[in-house]
């Protein structure tokens, strides 16, 4: 019951997960900041979610080097095909 009251007064969890994204990629208003911080203090589910989101965020930022490295190289025939297309398209100019 207490849980419910808290969620009504300092924003529902659904909104909090949205504010977490907003904070990462942009910035929050002062009001939002306070609501988020208070919510994270009282709600263990969102608090742990917030930690996990931050972990995913940091790892994603470094991930694409890894991810692109794992992609197989272009086959020679496809490479030649692309090159000749580029040549065709640029020679016109």
């Amino acid at each position, binding site marked *: 019951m207490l*849980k*419910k009251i808290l*969620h009504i007064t300092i924003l*529902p*969890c*659904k*909104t909090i*997960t*949205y504010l*977490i*994204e*907003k904070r*990462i*990629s*942009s910035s929050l208003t002062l009001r939002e900041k306070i609501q988020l911080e208070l919510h994270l203090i009282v709600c*263990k*589910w*969102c608090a*742990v*979610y917030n*930690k*996990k*989101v*931050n*972990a*995913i965020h*940091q*790892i*994603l*930022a*470094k*991930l*694409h080097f*890894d*991810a*692109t*490295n*794992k*992609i197989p*190289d*272009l086959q020679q025939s*496809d*490479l030649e*095909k*692309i*090159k000749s*297309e*580029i*040549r065709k*398209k*640029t020679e016109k*100019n």
Partner: protein
Amino acid sequence: MNCAKNALLCKKSRLLFMSEFEKWVDLYTNELYKRAFYLFSNKEDAEDLVQEVFVAAYAQLPKFRNESSPLTWLNSILRNKAAEFYRKKYETETKIRLDHFFNQDKFWKQTNNIESWTDDEKNLLDEESFREYLIKCLNELPEKWNILVKLTYLEQKKSSEICQETNITATNYWKILQRSRLQLRECLETNWFKQNA
């Protein structure tokens, strides 16, 4: 190129310019293709994108300054073109539903996943299998979301820039990130952490 004054010099510099461009095509096509494939998870779209990048680079060559490496420059064109591709493909806005995760009171439906993943999240960075699962989970997101997530992280651009390039509103952008992140968390929890528990 102003060829009126010195035709010979002009011809020479044009040849130089062409051979330089050819060199770039030789050197960077494969690398750019891999990046494009990472974004689109699809060979045809990736190949098309690489062609577009070089055609655009060719047209913009006078703008290229030697301050950045050719690959850095080509990568930024690639990101730009990818955003354009995304914009055209996903013009219509779709409603993002969260009822898989939240009940009518907007409270978590699943309340049993409260353990932390590790004591220190930094350790996850070095965990090869974690990164592999993250890529796998990322690719399981619907294309409309996973491309946007990848674009976001590819070059650490501000969200305002991403929104402008892809022509989506900031609110919708955060909602897509929110929905994607909820799903990523769930996917990682069911795959990686269950196995390593």
